């Protein structure tokens, strides 16, 4: 093996550095913008960095005049007379944080989607991995064809049905507005085919001898599924769950169609409105702070899981 010349190494590193700069340009811009004190900044400076934007979107904007909440309290004096007075029970210094409301809405929707998707998909994938039955090929065929459809085609019909069923209303059902349930239902539908496909590949890799040994010991199919297959496919479940979570966490196309009120907004709608309503500079630093808050956790998890994510993705696309 000949030695690589100094020049060649230098050029390689310089070219790589060029790419890295192009990648870091928007990333560093948005991080710096999130620490700027005023909205009229275009080129962020390193002076006067502040945490104000984060503080405001997480805890709410400070009110100009704090509002006092008073309550009528009945006091019994020592001589037995009863008087009532107004007493300050709480001082509100900030507006409620709309960011946090949207954040919890999205957490709820994404978590429910992941739980339902994983439970149903793991059962189905187990059936596909361990049994043969008439109609099995239909799913494979459907999966391949459905890949070709733009997701929006199905959304139109789902929306029409949701409108008819009254699932676009804000009325609560089981502690959550109906329209949020509609999103959970829609996202589960989007995620399921891939989740089944992906989990089946993981379960196929678990040796069948384990099931057979358990069967000999008298274990029922459910026990085999719940006590052997599910624990052994935990990495697969984690990856599939992550895909489902990311599919629901920042989904905005369906949410945009279904949700019109700001109080019901999910996280992506909240950010979208921040940037699309009003002109440049109106909310840019707040938007930057929200971007950082939303992107950092997902990015960290993604980087940690990237090897597995990729293997699942390729299994799904190459096979068949």
């Amino acid at each position, binding site marked *: *093996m000949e030695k*690589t010349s100094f020049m060649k190494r230098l050029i390689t590193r310089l070219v*790589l550095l060029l*790419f*890295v700069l*192009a990648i*870091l340009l*928007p990333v560093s*811009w948005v991080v710096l913008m999130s620490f700027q004190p005023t909205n009229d900044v*275009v*080129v962020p400076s390193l002076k006067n960095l502040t945490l104000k934007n984060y503080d405001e979107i997480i805890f709410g904007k400070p009110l100009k005049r704090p509002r006092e909440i008073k309550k009528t309290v009945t006091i019994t004096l020592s001589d037995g007379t009863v008087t009532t007075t107004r007493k300050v029970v709480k001082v509100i210094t900030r507006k409620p944080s709309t960011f946090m409301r949207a954040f919890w809405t999205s957490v709820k929707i994404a978590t429910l989607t992941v739980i339902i998707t994983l439970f*149903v*998909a793991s*059962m*189905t994938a*187990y*059936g596909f991995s361990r*049994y*043969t*039955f*008439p109609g099995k090929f239909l*799913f494979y065929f*459907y999966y391949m064809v459905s890949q*070709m*459809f*733009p997701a*929006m*085609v*199905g*959304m*139109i*019909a789902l929306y*029409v*049905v949701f409108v*008819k069923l009254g699932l676009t209303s804000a009325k609560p059902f089981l502690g959550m507005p109906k329209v949020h349930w509609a999103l959970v*239902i829609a996202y589960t539908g*989007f995620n*399921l085919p891939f989740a*089944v496909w992906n989990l089946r590949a993981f379960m196929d890799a678990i040796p069948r001898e384990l099931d057979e040994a358990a069967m000999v010991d008298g274990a029922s*199919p459910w026990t085999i*599924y719940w006590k052997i297959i599910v624990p052994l496919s935990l990495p697969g479940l984690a990856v599939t769950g992550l895909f489902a979570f*990311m599919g629901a966490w*920042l989904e905005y*196309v369906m949410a*945009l169609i279904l949700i019109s009120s700001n109080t019901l907004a999910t996280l*992506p709608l909240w*950010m*979208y409105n921040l940037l699309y309503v009003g002109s*440049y500079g109106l909310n*840019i630093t707040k*938007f*930057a702070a929200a*971007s950082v808050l*939303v*992107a950092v956790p997902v*990015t960290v998890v993604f*980087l940690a899981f*990237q090897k597995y994510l990729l293997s699942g993705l*390729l299994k799904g*696309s190459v096979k068949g």
Partner: protein
Amino acid sequence: MAKKDYKTAYFFVSPGMLLIFFLSFLPLVFSLVIAFTNLEKQVIGDFVREGFKVIRFVGFDNFRWIIKNDGVILFKTLQWNIVWTFINVFFHVSLGITLAIMLNNKWMSTVEKTIWRFILILPWAIPAFVTILVWRAMFYENGFINAILTYIGIHPIPWMTSPFWARIAVLIINIWLGVPFMMIIALGALQSIPAELYEAASVDGATPWQKIRYITVPLVLRVMMPSILLGIIWTFNKFDVIWLFNKGGPVVSVTVGGKVYSYGATNLLITYMYNYFYNQHAWNIAAALGYVVFFVLLALSLINMKLQKWAEE
């Protein structure tokens, strides 16, 4: 051997299969039905109040309407859609392979490689929803990029209002987003090339450049083919970059046969269709367009499959 206990099998697969049937398969069929009905803006109110009985079948009227009213726009949009897909996939694959070859060397330490790789896959790891909106904010006409251009003595560019520059902007964003995925695929492909090939080439006196040109690139491309096909489908239907950047705008007009047609310069078929659904509430037209997109895609994939087979022979 897979077991043949149908009852147990159906017990396990039926919840998932039923959900997929109702939430994934049926909506696709129902959308096809909607494409043949009168479910447009004026009918929607009645539909909400009175239900399915107000819906009437109109045969191929919606498709005819699209060809007659929007034929020119559809053609222009499809044209840009193909250019968009070609330019994107070309840069994704070529830059991806270039980066992979540079990273796949023998002289760099593992730590250094990991650091480079870590930064290079960031555009893939950060949620695209966030990065596209960030790019949009940077491309504002009085935003960061124009401020930098002014600083180095170039005139500010109307990224949002000029059709040409808006197209350049969305291309820049999507190339930025798509390179890391192809780089990772290419890295995997590089590792599958046997070292003996290079040794044999060295014995025959091949230069490093010849090795890349005649061994690395053809072999890597062959391994990458399924991912490239996938990339073509994804890019063809890339909704988020176009919609989040400028909702398919700015509007341009073209005069054909004395009639003026206005359409969004960056619109792809998919955003064009969404516009009918979201802004104009023409659900029937949107559904019909959705199936047009599907058949275009199906045709492209079939052609691609034929080409691939032909290339292999």
